[in-house]
């Protein structure tokens, strides 16, 4: 094993088709026109010394280290800013440039601490390397003059230090923050010798607008910006490329290791989803893997009020099997089920649904996608033919107008948001449709052309109003519709949306969006060129979630924005493997590959492979499982890697359902909230402890590679296998590659996927004989279902309505620095940014209620109440309040209700009628729950031997 070091070509690659040939130190090299001499030289194998240049940033030309001589030209130009020319003869190491470089380096070093042996960058310092490359032997100026050697260190950020004494003011950090991340948090303050790097308005990094993505740390050529983990542990000695286990962007990282200890996670430049960028979570928030809260031994108990008792794996697995068999014998084959995890690998998810179908003999398998993107599955399946985003992430580079609906990419999908912001800074237009004024609406160098601040729950009305404008103003792409879509359905749809009752003016009172904004946005989307739609849970988590997804698909088809780079319909998936868990047949009505269980031919494939008869009827969805538990017909549940008590809506109902079950098996890293109601706890493994694959939001299958042994002794797929075997259904895999081989044998869209291929590069499904290299963009020549299908999208108001008791609308979401229920992120230093959930409330609504900034407030709905602190902000409109669900102390889902999407039962998280009033502390429910939690988490002391 070695430390992977990507080649730094110094400047970015050019994509020109015209090639230029030149001579560098006598070596012929041919590169695309526009390439810098520095890059061309590196491609010829000749590294020119550099400090301010790196190939993730635009050329800057400030350090004067990369000077070269060019025959026939005067002077010594900087090779990073000088483009190649045909026949050019470059000399990179003449006496003249060597003398200049050495002289410049002397100046740098005259103001740099000479503490290399004790420096955290020792062994990985570009300044040190460059000093070696230029042959620095002496610093004639000494260090007695004016210098910055006593400049203070800013250690405020929990993950990295800024040691100003080591800064050479190369501006790589400032440029990374601007060009790569797009936050513009850093600047060079002062001039000349007084120049220094400053965060925000010369603030500590932690309190500045820095989002801690780590781009500056990665760009720094010295120890100025350095991970605290490297300071503590030293430089890594080997690295393993793997995939982040946070959001659906699926960033590739190098896990840089010392032995089996992670020293740091560094975004991998060759990662196709992230191209070397990262966010604060993936880059830094992996400390949960070694948090003392992790449970590393299996535990069982008779009743949920008993203390947990640590047992062997064999005893725990035997308990699971005996309990599940007992329940099935008593209450029938359909009385138990599973919930697969979008945080686990494809292979693990595949095994859990197989456990239900083959070992339990039923289809009671569901996944957390039920409560996020299940309407995407239904909506895109109906209109296009399959549940998948249509584009790769790189497609956004070709978009002319970007529509963001019910998504907050800078918080939820930050690395993709940075790509999106790069395109917006290049001139693409932006339309935001969201009740909140999310950061994208207006942030440094970004301003939306239109922000449609719709009333929560009126997505369908807004989308139909947009369609009304496109149809009635003849903005339809007639050729696309005629060639690619079902014309009868299109005609019905066009007639429907054209009805006067669907005009922006007629719907203004419903949506709260001024008609002129809707008209302007529709015209922009339909006429600006390539129109790309990105949407999130603000679309799906409604009683008409599926209808909105279909309305979005209608718009894309009507304007011909499907089937090429720069366009498309792109669901931004929440968790790392939401796409994969859906692909793997986690839903109770679908076998892997989105094929309904009622299909005899599909069942036959799996029946032959698995040697069982598969039930042709759909099983229970997650909300139905709770109902059936209360009803007494569903009594056993195996939950892998999800905290349904905290994440699912209407907590009281969920807890009642869980309490009604006779055997709840929680398979997780921590004693999560669901474990309060569990009878068996099986310790899970982190993404660092197992092999497998994740599939990101662009359908990209990425390798997850084990960098350390499972701390509890088993990878999660091994645990599921053990349960199946104990249940009497044999499962014998030696490695996840064998599971992927089974997936490929049985699932056409994965037919061409193998670990050997994935080891070379990631693949976007479908990957099969028809698409041997995978499918970066879908529906290029035709839709998966054949012809695109327009669907009429009648607006049906939610039954969750405001009234005198509950006059405000609550909508929920998440924040950059926390992830889902926070089980992982809350156990890292990232809590510095978001230590508690807060309630955003408009100053007008707050004033009416006598609420001031930071006050405790009681948030109540007909489902329940909780208390949290108020933040007064105009990000939310009057009448709308907003909170996150990351902290179990708050339990925001005590407030949300049982209403759900008509097609899929996806909960209506985004619309809850609430009242907000001043409070003075925790609610009675919070206190009761805390007491229950304390009781139900007790672990029996093990007597000393």
């Amino acid at each position: 094993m070695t430390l992977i070091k990507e080649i730094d070509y110094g400047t970015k690659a050019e994509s020109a088709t015209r090639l230029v040939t030149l001579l560098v130190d006598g070596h012929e090299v041919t590169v695309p026109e526009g390439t810098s001499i520095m890059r061309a030289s590196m491609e010829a194998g000749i590294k020119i010394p550099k400090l301010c240049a790196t190939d993730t940033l635009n050329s800057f030309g400030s350090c004067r280290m990369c000077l070269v001589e060019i025959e026939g030209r005067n002077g010594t130009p900087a090779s990073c800013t000088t483009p190649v020319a045909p026949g050019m003869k470059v000399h990179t190491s003449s006496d003249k440039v060597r003398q200049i470089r050495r002289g410049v380096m002397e100046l740098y070093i005259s103001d740099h601490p000479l503490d290399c042996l004790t420096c955290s960058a020792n062994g990985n310092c570009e300044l040190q390397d460059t000093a070696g490359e230029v042959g620095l032997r002496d610093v004639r100026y000494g260090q007695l003059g004016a210098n910055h050697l006593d400049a203070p260190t800013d250690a405020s950020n929990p993950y990295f230090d800024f040691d100003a004494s080591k800064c050479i003011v190369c501006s790589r950090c400032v440029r990374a923050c601007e060009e790569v991340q797009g936050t513009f948090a850093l600047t060079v303050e002062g001039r000349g010798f007084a120049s220094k790097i400053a965060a925000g308005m010369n603030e500590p990094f932690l309190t500045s607008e820095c989002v801690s993505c780590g781009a500056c740390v990665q760009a720094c050529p010295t120890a100025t910006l350095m991970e605290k983990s490297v300071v503590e542990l030293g430089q890594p000695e080997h690295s393993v490329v793997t995939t982040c286990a946070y959001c659906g962007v699926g960033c590739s990282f190098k896990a840089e290791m010392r032995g089996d200890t992670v020293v740091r996670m560094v975004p991998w430049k060759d990662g196709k989803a992230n191209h070397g960028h990262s966010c604060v979570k993936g880059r830094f928030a992996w400390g949960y893997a070694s948090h003392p809260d992790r449970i590393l031994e299996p535990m069982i108990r008779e009743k949920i009020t008993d203390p947990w008792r640590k047992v062997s794996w064999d005893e725990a697995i035997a308990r699971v099997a005996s309990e599940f068999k007992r329940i099935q014998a008593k209450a029938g084959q359909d009385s138990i089920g599973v919930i697969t995890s979008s945080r686990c690998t494809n292979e693990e998810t595949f095994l859990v649904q197989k456990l239900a179908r083959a070992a339990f003999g039923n289809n009671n398998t569901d996944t957390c996608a039920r409560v996020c993107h299940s309407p995407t599955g239904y909506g895109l399946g109906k209109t296009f033919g399959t549940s998948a985003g249509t584009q790769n992430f790189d497609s956004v580079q070709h978009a002319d107008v970007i529509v963001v609906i019910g998504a907050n990419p800078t918080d939820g999908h930050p690395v993709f948001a940075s790509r999106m912001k790069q395109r917006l800074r290049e001139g693409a237009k932006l339309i935001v449709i969201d009740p909140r004024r999310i950061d994208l609406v207006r942030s440094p160098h970004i301003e939306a052309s239109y922000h449609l601040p719709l009333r929560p729950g009126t997505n369908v009305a807004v989308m139909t109003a947009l369609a009304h404008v496109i149809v009635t103003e003849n903005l339809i792409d007639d050729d696309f519709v005629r060639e690619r879509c079902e014309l009868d359905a299109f005609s019905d749809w066009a007639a429907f949306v054209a009805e006067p009752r669907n005009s922006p003016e007629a719907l203004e009172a419903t949506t709260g969006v001024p008609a002129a904004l809707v008209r302007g946005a529709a015209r922009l989307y339909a006429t600006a060129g390539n129109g790309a739609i990105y949407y999130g849970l603000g679309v799906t988590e409604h009683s008409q979630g599926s209808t909105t997804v279909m309305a979005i698909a209608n718009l894309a088809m009507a304007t011909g924005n499907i089937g090429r780079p720069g366009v498309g319909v792109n669901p931004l998936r929440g968790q790392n493997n939401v796409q994969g868990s859906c692909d793997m047949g986690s839903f109770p009505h679908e076998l892997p590959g989105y094929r309904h269980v009622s299909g005899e031919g599909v069942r036959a494939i799996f029946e032959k492979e698995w040697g069982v008869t598969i039930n042709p009827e759909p099983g229970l969805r997650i909300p139905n499982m709770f109902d059936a538990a209360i009803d007494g017909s569903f009594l056993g549940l195996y939950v892998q890697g999800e905290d349904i008590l905290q994440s699912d809506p209407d907590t009281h109902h969920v807890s009642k359902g869980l309490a009604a079950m006779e055997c709840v098996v929680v398979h997780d890293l921590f004693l999560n909230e669901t474990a309060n109601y569990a009878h068996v706890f099986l310790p899970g493994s982190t993404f660092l402890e197992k092999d497998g694959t994740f599939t990101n939001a662009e359908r990209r299958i990425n390798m997850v590679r084990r960098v350390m042994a499972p701390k509890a002794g088993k990878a999660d797929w091994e645990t599921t296998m053990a349960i199946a075997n104990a249940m009497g259904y044999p499962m014998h895999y030696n490695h996840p590659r064998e599971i992927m081989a089974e997936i490929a044998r049985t699932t056409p869209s994965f037919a061409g996927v193998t670990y050997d291929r994935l080891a070379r590069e990631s693949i976007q499904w479908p990957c099969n004989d028809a698409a041997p290299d995978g499918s970066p963009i879908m529906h290029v020549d035709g839709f998966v279902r054949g012809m695109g299908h327009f669907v009429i999208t009648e607006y049906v108001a939610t039954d969750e309505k405001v009234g005198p008791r509950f006059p405000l609308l609550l909508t929920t979401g998440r924040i950059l620095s926390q992830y889902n229920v926070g089980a992982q992120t809350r156990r890292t230093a990232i809590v510095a940014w978001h230590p508690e959930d807060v309630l955003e409330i408009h100053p007008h609504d707050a004033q009416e209620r006598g609420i001031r900034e930071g006050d405790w407030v009681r948030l109540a709905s007909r489902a329940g109440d909780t208390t949290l602190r108020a933040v007064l902000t105009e990000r939310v409109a009057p009448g709308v309040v907003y909170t996150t669900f990351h902290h179990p102390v708050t339990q925001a889902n005590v407030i949300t209700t049982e209403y759900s999407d008509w097609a899929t039962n996806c909960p209506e998280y985004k619309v809850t009628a609430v009242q907000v009033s001043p409070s003075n502390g925790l609610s009675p429910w919070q206190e009761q729950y805390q007491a229950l939690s304390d009781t139900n988490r007790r672990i029996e002391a093990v007597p000393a031997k």
Partner: protein
Amino acid sequence: MSPDKLAYMANQIGKFFLSQKSEDGVASVADHLKKFWDPRMRRDLVAHIDQVALDPMVRQAVERLR
């Protein structure tokens, strides 16, 4: 399961298919229930068809599940 809750969910499905001009609403609702509802949910709704408030088209669809 709560018959009223099942009826509410079935009526939600009905409201969607009622607006689809080219589809047989009754058949579509029945098909949706068959494709997405666990059999015990369908059985419970059928068993309580006379006690719950179902929209006319939905009632016809549920009748077909008997």
